[in-house]
């Protein structure tokens, strides 16, 4: 039970630290490495050492930075429309944002996950979750484009997602906002009577193509599942999910969900789950969902799917165990050896570390069980405990590993990163963070072989750090060099949206494999025009297809005639076969459509309903050559 005085203390802590930043300015420079500027300086023409992929939080996107320079290279649109290049608007990509709720052009993306082979980053794909309208996305690291989005059925608030198994066999997704499963209108207080449920979803990743599919769902007690990380090496078969609100409170959660001293980390044996499914222990369950797939140079194909295989924990003994973990845990992180499972209890005064070997030893021994919840044995806290980091900081959240035997934990309330030693559990360094740090990321820090060297902390508050820009200030990430015994702050930089988590990858794993263009010969778009000779206008009743080409510095055909109300599809193929020469396409005053950026060898479609009579210009928006301004023409609309 939480003592009232503790609660007051925590509240006081939050209040204190919320106001403290205003007077903390001096500390910022005090801890900066003295040669920090030269260590983040990347000379003109030189390349960064590391790619950082940051989730965009409420922007719904993913951003790509170079580390150590912290230069922003790209924003990859994933769950939100992107007028800059037409993502979510054109005929090719608008179906990427289809869901069972209809077209959802925004989301809240929290966690970036890198694909791995044998526990090591392989530089093939990034995965990103959509929290609000539960979805998972796969981003291809050849083209840095979103290739697939899969909706997750029978869940709400897809927060503990998308965490990959060691070999990217599966991505895990678990429910944050428990709801009736299947959905139903019930009194909200039935939550407290067990009427709400969560699910853990295993999303299969095809190892050659990356294609995503729902393999299995497990119906779990209606707690809030917050984060996950999967095992490595000896713990390969397991994934671990943190949960809060095991009280199943449904109002005033900040009090109601903090009553118990401990919530749980759910240990899930996914290999066992698959085994039970294969033995026929899962049953057919409903749930509609949508899979959107965008093949290179083809319009996205959106497929509506129905039904999943559902498994109840009681029908699959040995699949799930709860490990009590103090208190409202956020992070659950597995170290590089696969032995330690570190909890981050937002309201805990210790960082609890569970031992995988101990868990294996005791999990099926009754004397180590305290109780059982809906068929899931609850292990005794002490039985799996490897150790506790005592009084590390206030509000420990999330831990990453450097592969050298050290762990780094972010502390939200006391705005710092603590470095501590695995095995001895002693804190060796406190690093101030400015301010209210959420997740951390070390290069390769969630793989079996961290590259280490850099750590970034993703902070929520930046008051007094940057030039003020009105009431909403940017969030920030702070870069530390962790290559020597003592971690040092190098720089901080504003970020896009509110970054929650990041994956950092050594540049050499990706940079030479990136695509430079789409080979025209391989363009399989049904409306591609591969030669200027084939450019043409095809009228079909009130619909007109314009097979258009773009090359420095003209479009063909360049004079278009239309009638008011006629629907025109401009299928524009960029004929360039030269790196870094996209062309743009925009029509003056076009409603419902934005700009298109068409990459070399690519075809994209601009849909336009001819408005009232007049002359409408269209033009290239991406400065392409000395005659770029001349890359313009007209559409005449007659009554």
């Amino acid at each position, binding site marked *: 039970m939480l003592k009232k005085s503790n609660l007051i203390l925590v509240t006081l802590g939050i209040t204190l630290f919320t106001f403290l930043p205003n007077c903390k300015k001096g500390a910022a420079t005090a801890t900066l490495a003295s040669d920090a500027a030269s260590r983040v300086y990347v000379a003109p023409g030189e390349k960064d050492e590391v790619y950082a992929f940051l989730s965009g939080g409420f922007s719904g996107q993913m951003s790509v930075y170079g580390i150590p320079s912290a230069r922003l290279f790209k924003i990859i649109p994933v769950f939100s429309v992107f007028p800059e290049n037409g993502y979510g608007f054109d005929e090719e990509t608008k179906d990427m944002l289809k869901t069972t709720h209809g077209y959802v052009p925004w989301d809240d993306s929290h966690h970036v996950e890198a694909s791995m082979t044998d526990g090591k980053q392989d530089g093939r794909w990034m995965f990103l979750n959509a929290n609000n309208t539960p979805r998972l996305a796969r981003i291809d690291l050849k083209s840095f484009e979103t290739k697939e989005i899969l909706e997750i059925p029978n869940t709400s608030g897809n927060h503990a997602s998308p965490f990959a198994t060691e070999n990217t066999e599966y991505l895990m997704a678990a429910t944050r906002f428990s709801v009736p499963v299947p959905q139903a209108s019930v009194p909200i207080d039935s939550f407290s009577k067990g009427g709400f449920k969560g699910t853990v979803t295993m999303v299969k990743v095809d190892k050659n193509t990356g294609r995503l599919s729902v393999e299995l769902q497990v119906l779990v007690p209606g707690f809030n599942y917050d984060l996950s990380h999967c095992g490595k090496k000896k713990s390969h078969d397991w994934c671990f999910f943190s949960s809060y609100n095991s009280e199943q409170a449904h109002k005033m959660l900040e009090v109601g969900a903090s009553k118990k001293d401990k919530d749980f980390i759910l240990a899930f044996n996914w290999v066992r789950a698959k085994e039970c499914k294969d033995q026929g222990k899962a049953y057919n369950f409903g749930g509609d969902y949508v899979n959107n797939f965008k093949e290179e140079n083809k319009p996205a194909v959106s497929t509506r799917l129905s039904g999943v295989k559902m498994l109840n924990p009681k029908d699959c003994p040995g699949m799930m165990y709860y490990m009590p973990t103090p208190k409202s845990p956020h992070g659950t992180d597995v170290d590089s050896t696969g032995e330690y499972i570190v909890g981050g209890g937002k309201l805990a005064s210790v960082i609890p570390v569970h031992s995988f070997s101990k868990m294996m030893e005791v999990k099926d021994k009754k004397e180590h069980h305290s109780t059982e919840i809906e068929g899931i044995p609850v292990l005794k806290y002490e039985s799996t405990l490897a150790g506790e980091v005592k009084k590390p900081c206030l509000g420990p959240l999330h831990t990453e590993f450097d592969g050298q035997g050290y762990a780094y934990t972010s502390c939200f309330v006391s705005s710092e990163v603590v470095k501590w030693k695995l095995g001895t559990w002693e804190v060796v360094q406190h690093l101030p963070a400015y301010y209210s740090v959420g997740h951390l990321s070390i290069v390769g820090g969630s793989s079996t072989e961290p590259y280490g060297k850099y750590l970034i902390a993703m902070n929520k508050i930046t008051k007094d750090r940057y030039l003020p820009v009105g009431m909403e200030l940017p969030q920030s990430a702070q870069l530390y060099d962790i290559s020597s015994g003592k971690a040092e702050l190098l720089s901080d930089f504003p970020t896009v949206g509110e970054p929650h988590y990041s994956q950092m990858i050594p540049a050499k794993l990706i940079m030479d494999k990136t695509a430079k263009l789409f080979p025209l010969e391989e363009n399989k778009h049904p409306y591609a025009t*591969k*030669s200027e000779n084939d450019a043409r206008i095809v009228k079909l009743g009130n619909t007109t297809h314009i097979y258009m080409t773009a090359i*420095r*510095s003209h479009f063909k055909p360049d004079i278009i005639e239309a009638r008011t109300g006629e629907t025109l599809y401009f299928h524009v193929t960029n004929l360039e*076969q*030269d790196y870094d020469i996209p062309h743009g396409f925009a029509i003056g005053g076009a409603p419902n459509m934005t700009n298109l950026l068409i990459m070399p060898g690519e075809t994209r479609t601009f849909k336009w309903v001819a408005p009232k009579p007049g002359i409408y210009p269209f033009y290239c928006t991406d*400065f392409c*050559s*000395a005659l*770029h301004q001349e890359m313009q023409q007209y559409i005449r609309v007659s009554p």
Partner: protein
Amino acid sequence: MMIGLLSFLTIIACGGEKTEESPASNAGSKGIGPVKSVTLGTLDQAMADRGKKQFEAKCAACHKFEEKVVGPALQDVTLRRTPEWIMNMILNPIEMTQKDPIGQELLGEHLTQMTFQNVKEEEAREILEYFRKMDLK
């Protein structure tokens, strides 16, 4: 892209600084690129036909034979330039416009960087054969 363009017009992106070469005698120049020597035989019709296809897909958007469009008119190009120079211009247009005196002059005149259209050496040879055929007319 604006910045990219500016650097093209001044020093030109990745090639470093201009080399001081005298543009004196260009006539026999083989240009700069992978093609060092080409032996021409009698016109190979089949090869010229393949070259025509390539040309129409990858070059015709910017070149006509009889008049200048984006790039220069191509009639009689095989009389004006060596076969090596023509192929190197197709295969290595950026370096050619940076360093080859004729290439530099042509960029100054037409002001649009010729693009490398992902043409393979063998295909460039076919295009050259097509140019030869056109010049026989």
